């Protein structure tokens, strides 16, 4: 696995990352800005998303329509999103159009017009998106879990609230942009077919003279245990569970990730075997690692018809707690094999590589290589996983259910 990761910090604080993948024809970049939902005033929930939307409605020399047409003309695939700590903008295109594509991205970030005749349209879109989650109970379940577990500030959804969206003014968007879209704390990562020196020159031209306030520190994130039930007239009950685990920047993160893998990676994983294969209780069941700064959690999901929901919850929690009894060498071997394959296959996609690099830098302040990751994973043993489990036992449980009836959740909450 040959790999070269370039890193550079511009004098204004913006971090530039690049990994050439010359066997591809594409390039993909991710730009992370230090503008998340936790920066929103508490009476303007949804402001980060509204600001991002308004930034894409005309910037630099382009009108709202021209931005879209220009990106379509270049054949650019793009996405943008807001998380607790960041606003992100990602684009993928053929290598030959990197320069004009990045020029557009730079104007979206640095030079948006904020046309006042489009604010209402952006607001209506945001309200519709917020309303549509009501018809997607599984997603709604996770939104509620996040709110319950991480509290008012860190548990906010990027969709915002109806009141917050209704109150947002153009001035709010402009202020949010001025205070949080700045180079210190911003990261741009590029992967694919490109030359590092010319990319760096391009970034310097487009972002070198960008100035702004220094990155602000924020309060520690902590998890809050508890449970809630939302009544919904559905056939299935949706179950979302969370418990404490170490976060992505913790030295033992891969021990924890390994345990989640034993639970949920692949068709031979324990949750899939116990909940679906042996008992036929669900169509989907899963667990994943989640980090908010230093606060790590494991998030689990299971969806099942209401009469079987209690059994599904009980078996899911039981399966998690039974990790304590030990890990089979074969389970760990399969896990390692899956990780190795996915690391090799990561080289086939500039998009997944660029977003991973940006995420790594945001959490770790560096980009681990595949080789390093592979040796960390290779070093996992059944004993080390169990030792980690004993040290960081699941605790601080959260449970959210959506469905006709609430469930009993006494055994594990502590």
């Amino acid at each position, binding site marked *: 696995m040959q790999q070269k990761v370039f890193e550079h910090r511009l004098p204004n604080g913006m971090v530039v990352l690049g990994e050439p993948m010359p066997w*591809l024809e*594409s390039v993909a970049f991710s730009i992370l800005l230090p503008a998340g939902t936790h920066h929103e005033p508490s009476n303007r929930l949804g402001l980060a998303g509204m600001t991002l939307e308004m930034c894409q409605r005309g910037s630099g020399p382009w009108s*709202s*329509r021209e931005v879209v*047409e220009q990106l*379509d*003309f*270049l*054949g*650019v695939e793009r996405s943008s999103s807001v998380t607790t700590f960041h606003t992100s903008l990602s684009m*993928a*295109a*053929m290598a030959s159009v990197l320069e004009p594509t990045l020029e557009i991205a730079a104007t979206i970030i640095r030079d948006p017009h904020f046309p006042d005749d489009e604010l209402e*349209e*952006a*607001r*209506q*879109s*945001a*309200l*519709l*998106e917020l*309303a*549509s989650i*009501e*018809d*997607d109970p599984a997603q709604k379940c996770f939104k509620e879990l996040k709110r319950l577990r991480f509290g008012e500030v860190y548990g906010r959804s990027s969709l915002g609230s109806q009141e917050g969206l209704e109150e947002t003014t153009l001035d709010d968007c402009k202020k949010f942009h001025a205070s949080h879209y700045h180079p210190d704390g911003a990261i741009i990562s590029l992967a694919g077919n490109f030359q590092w020196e010319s990319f760096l020159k391009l970034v310097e031209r487009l972002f070198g003279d960008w100035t702004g306030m220094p990155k602000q520190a924020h309060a520690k994130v902590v998890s809050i245990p508890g449970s809630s039930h939302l009544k*919904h*007239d*559905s*056939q*299935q009950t949706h179950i979302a569970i969370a418990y404490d685990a170490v976060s992505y920047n913790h030295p033992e993160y891969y021990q924890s990730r390994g345990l989640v893998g034993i639970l949920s*990676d*692949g*068709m*031979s994983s324990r949750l*899939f075997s116990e909940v*679906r*294969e042996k*008992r*036929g*209780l*669900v*169509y989907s069941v899963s667990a994943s690692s989640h980090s908010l700064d230093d606060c790590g959690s494991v998030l689990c999901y299971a*969806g*099942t*018809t209401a009469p079987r929901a209690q059994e599904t919850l009980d078996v899911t929690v039981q399966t998690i707690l039974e990790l304590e009894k030990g890990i089979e060498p*074969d389970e760990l*071997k*399969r*896990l390692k*094999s*899956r*990780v*190795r*394959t996915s690391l090799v*296959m990561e080289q*086939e*996609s*500039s998009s997944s590589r660029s977003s991973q690099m940006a995420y790594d830098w945001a959490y770790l302040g560096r980009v681990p290589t595949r080789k390093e990751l592979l040796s960390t994973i290779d070093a996992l043993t059944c004993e080390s996983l169990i030792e980690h489990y004993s040290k960081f036992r699941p605790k601080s449980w959260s449970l959210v259910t959506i469905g006709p009836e609430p469930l009993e959740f006494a055994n594990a909450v502590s």
Partner: protein
Amino acid sequence: MQFHNQVLDNGLEIIAEVNKEAFSQSLGYFVKTGSRDESPEMAGVSHFLEHMMFKGTPNRSAVDVNRELDDLGSQSNAYTSEEQTVYYMSVLPENQNAALDLLTDMMRPALRDEDFQTERQVILEEIAMYDDQPPYGAMERAMEVYFREHPLARRVLGTRETVAALDPESMRAYHEARYAPNNLTLVATGAVDFDALVQSVEKMTKHWKPSSSARSLRSPSIESEDVAMVHPPATQQYTLQYSPGPGYCDERRYVTRILASILGDDSGSRLFWELVDTGLAESAAVFTQEFEECGLICTFLACAPEQQEENWEAIRNTLAAGKQNPITDREMELAKNKICAGMILGSERPSNRLFSVGNAWTFRRKYETIQAATKHYQAVKIEDVQEEFEKLSDRKQVTVTVGPEA
């Protein structure tokens, strides 16, 4: 890139697009059987069988199958549609033989009674999951109303009743008829050793017997109809309209796909600017669905229930404005660029190529490089798109809407 194909004596066809430089390879069995090949009382058997194929063979238990899939580090899955059932995995090239051995063995499943009963519960959960999602219900209903007596009317998952009534014996018979080697294609893409592939498959499938598993093709007879459904927990109104379009063997499909992109792509299209960008609708889209002998042009709207009427009227006007508001050269250029760039970007992973190469061959017996495939779009003339646009609203239409109230 090198293309290979070979037909074994038992009728099993093997094709591969070999790219020696790739990091991985993908393998897939494309089975020409889907919900359209089922009898009404067996509705859902193709999809149920797809689940059962992971439940073990005479040589492997269900647990063995799952463990081996993970041992190989594979990314694997399967899906069932109206037209086909596909089983696929992506692995590192060094695992070609082991992957092939597993996937090929899986094509001859044990279909044990006890596994059948447990898996039926999983299928019923899958049906319940989709029943809670109102747009999915609208889609199923629209297919039923549009296709009527035609086999494409049947639900891929079947219904609670048909799934509850299925038994292992009839599933075995269905498997025997539909999974004969001459109804299967093994497709491989990426870093594949083709000769070794053929050699192993030949050995493993020597005892497989061909059968006559024909598909009945006929044009659907369509009557325009409007249906309103109520799903009390829904908060949004979902409206779906089907009208006739080209099938996947029809050369006109490139014209229709470009027209659909210009009118209703999820970004930059006419409906996008009119309804989505303006915040009137959460989604307003036009897209195509293609089957063997026929196809659909689909129009979809998701919005607040009180805005449905006005939005739908706006969509109708936009789609009927062929003469007043003709397609421009700029729209053609943007749609072509967007479609072709998307195809090229998507083709970098062998796992994505598997479906393009596999479908082109199983649907049309045609292999094309990605560059050749994009040329079909580049060659489409504006006059043809304009002509298609002007005829759009004259077609028969089935419209289904679902929301919280009637």
